[in-house]
């Protein structure tokens, strides 16, 4: 058994919360720069220039990229040979989020009850997903996500007969309906298969994949490419001011499903697609 201390986990989560909010992911920044070359709309080009400069200002001055520093989702991969010492793993994660947001001057964007809506004051609780894996390491991925793009996400239980065409239509409809609201250029996470809950989970996880990488299955890599071209023909453009770059990437994750089912989930993320990861 390899031992990992509670305090170490808390500190790591705290740093990841701040890092992800101040420093735009390299892959996303690269994609924004590449978009500057391709965008033909003058307003769109100006927006992209502002976004690239915004990333520089945020990391230099340690100011969040976006004022919506998000609800935090934490993905944990826990090696089965790891022993957590000094307390409960989830308490360390929540305490790390709490300290990260308070000490980093990040916005507290969580309400305790979805209807009664009192702010919890420290941006907890984070949503935690844990996967048990072989080995003796602990991988922690922190993903803060804003409400604007989350609100534009959607899930539909298609019929198997709807097939690939139905899936593509649903993704396009969702992106077109979202229009300027989710802060394009967006990253589109798509979960296909599994059940109702897993499709949504896969769509979210798809946003963690570096922009510029493809689904390892050539069939799905082709669908990703096709969908990206279709989305970028919708005309929405950067900030929704009209243009060719509506999305930076489409990432599809799939899972076996029931003979009667074809769940499709679309999780939209803004141009400030944020995450940070550490392996202990």
């Amino acid at each position: 058994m390899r031992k990992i201390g509670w305090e170490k986990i808390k500190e790591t989560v705290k740093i990841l919360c701040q890092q992800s909010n101040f420093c735009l992911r390299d892959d996303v920044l690269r994609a924004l720069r590449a978009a500057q070359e391709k965008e033909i709309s003058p307003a769109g080009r100006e927006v992209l220039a502002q976004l690239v400069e915004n990333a520089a200002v945020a990391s230099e001055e340690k100011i969040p990229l976006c004022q919506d520093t998000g609800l935090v989702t934490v993905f944990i991969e826990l090696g089965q040979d790891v022993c957590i010492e000094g307390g409960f793993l989830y308490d360390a994660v929540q305490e790390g989020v709490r300290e990260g947001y308070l000490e980093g001057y990040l916005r507290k964007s969580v309400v305790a009850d979805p209807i009664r809506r009192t702010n919890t004051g420290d941006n907890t609780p984070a949503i935690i997903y844990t996967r048990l894996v072989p080995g003796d390491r602990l991988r922690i991925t922190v993903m803060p996500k804003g409400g604007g793009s989350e609100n534009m996400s959607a899930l539909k239980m298609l019929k198997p007969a709807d097939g690939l065409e139905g899936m593509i239509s649903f993704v396009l409809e969702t992106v077109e309906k979202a229009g300027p609201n989710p802060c394009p250029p967006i990253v589109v996470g798509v979960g296909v298969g599994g059940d109702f809950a897993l499709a949504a989970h896969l769509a979210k996880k798809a946003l963690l994949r570096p922009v510029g990488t493809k689904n390892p299955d050539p069939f799905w890599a082709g669908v990703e490419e096709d969908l990206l071209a279709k989305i970028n023909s919708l005309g929405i453009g950067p900030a929704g001011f009209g243009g060719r770059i509506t999305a930076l990437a489409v990432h599809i994750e799939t899972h076996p499903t029931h003979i009667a089912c074809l769940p499709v989930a679309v999780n939209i993320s803004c141009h400030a697609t944020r995450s940070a990861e550490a392996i202990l």
Partner: protein
Amino acid sequence: MKKIKAPFTEAEALNLAAGDRVLLSGVIYTARDAAHKILVEMLARGEELPFPLKDQVIYYVGPTPAPPGRAVGAAGPTTSGRMDKYTPALLAAGMRAMIGKGSRSEEVVEAIKKYRGVYFAAVGGAAALLSRQIKKMELVAFPELGPEAVYRMTVEDFPLFVINDCYGRDFYREGVKKYKCLSPFAKQL
């Protein structure tokens, strides 16, 4: 690029057209979902609002806390559509303009025409950059709402795009129309 001062009058609104790029300087007020709900309830009860609404610009923003030595933290626009339910009442009560991001409802677009208002967008997610143009921020009302409290902001050359003008034009719709080019493979939408 047009330079305008906030607050501003109907005459100024008549000069603005969808697609115009504007640098706004002066005093504006912040309000999001929770503050809108309270303001509209106060108006319905005939109460006096915590700040004068006539000709004012409301910015849909919930900034991050200001780190020591700064006027404000990150402060970019939030999605305006969530305020649509409350906006016609505020325009009727004298509000001149709004700053946010994302499309507005038909009711809001009509109210903008009727009361000669303007809907501006700032670039969503350019919050660190935009915060540089905010020189001062003071609490005005509802501190219990945390990031949703109402603040008075002094801005200088705050960069905006006119989305909905008082003539009924919509820059988002016009932009999409101009650049939409469905590939032969795309299904009719």
